[in-house]
């Protein structure tokens, strides 16, 4: 398990004093369908993007709260990674995008019938958002509306 004590002093001090935004109350939806019948969407904060898309802006004050739609048939090794955070070791993720954006694993699970279907689009955010106001007001509701319109039943979220 990673813990705050594993981080650099700069990141440790920041994360120890940062006032995290908490869900209160905690929304909690029961799955509408058993997993083998469910439409599943993947959401990452790995900052992956198609090379044809504008990359995330790592220099934006408070963090870039935008997201990119990634077609679920995309070959993961072709994706760019905009993340420049020094809070974590990116070596593994750059060697195997499935480590934080497991499209291949979910496609395999769909083929085996473990999940009903993989949603046609996955969503990629950039995680380094220290001022989450825009995320909460605009982009997260926008992303959720897209997945709701797709008929997604279950979402798997993977931070980096």
């Amino acid at each position: 398990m990673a813990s705050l004590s594993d981080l650099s002093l700069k990141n440790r001090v920041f994360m120890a004093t940062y006032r995290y935004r908490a869900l209160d109350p905690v929304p909690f939806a029961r799955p509408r369908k058993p997993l083998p019948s469910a439409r599943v969407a993947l959401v990452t904060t790995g900052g992956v993007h198609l090379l044809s898309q504008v990359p995330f802006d790592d220099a934006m004050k408070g963090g870039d709260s935008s997201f990119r739609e990634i077609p679920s048939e995309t070959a993961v090794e072709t994706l760019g990674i905009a993340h420049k955070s020094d809070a974590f070791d990116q070596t593994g993720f750059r060697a195997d995008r499935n480590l934080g954006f497991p499209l291949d694993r979910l496609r395999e699970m769909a083929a085996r019938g473990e999940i009903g279907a993989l949603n046609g689009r996955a969503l990629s955010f950039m995680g380094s958002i220290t001022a989450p106001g825009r995320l909460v007001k605009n982009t997260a509701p926008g992303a959720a509306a897209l997945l709701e319109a797709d008929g997604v039943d279950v979402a798997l979220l993977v931070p980096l």
Partner: protein
Amino acid sequence: MCHQTVGLIAGELESRGIATTTVTMLREITAKVRTPRALAVPYALGYPLGKPGDPELQTRIIRAAFALLEAPGPGPVLADFTSTWIRSAP
């Protein structure tokens, strides 16, 4: 900050009736954010699904995360994934 971001997105999805399950490497941050359902993994930041090039381990972690969908709630639900594989320190 990825852990706060995924928690807040999960909350938005849940409020629209989409059940979520989230992987976390920082249990204490996920507990503070009150992410609706989360699986704490014993791996370093940057390694949420354990190990690059290890589809079997990655699949096991995803299955464990999906298993949380069966938790009756109410949220937050925060469980631990256990494995014998731990990434050695760089």
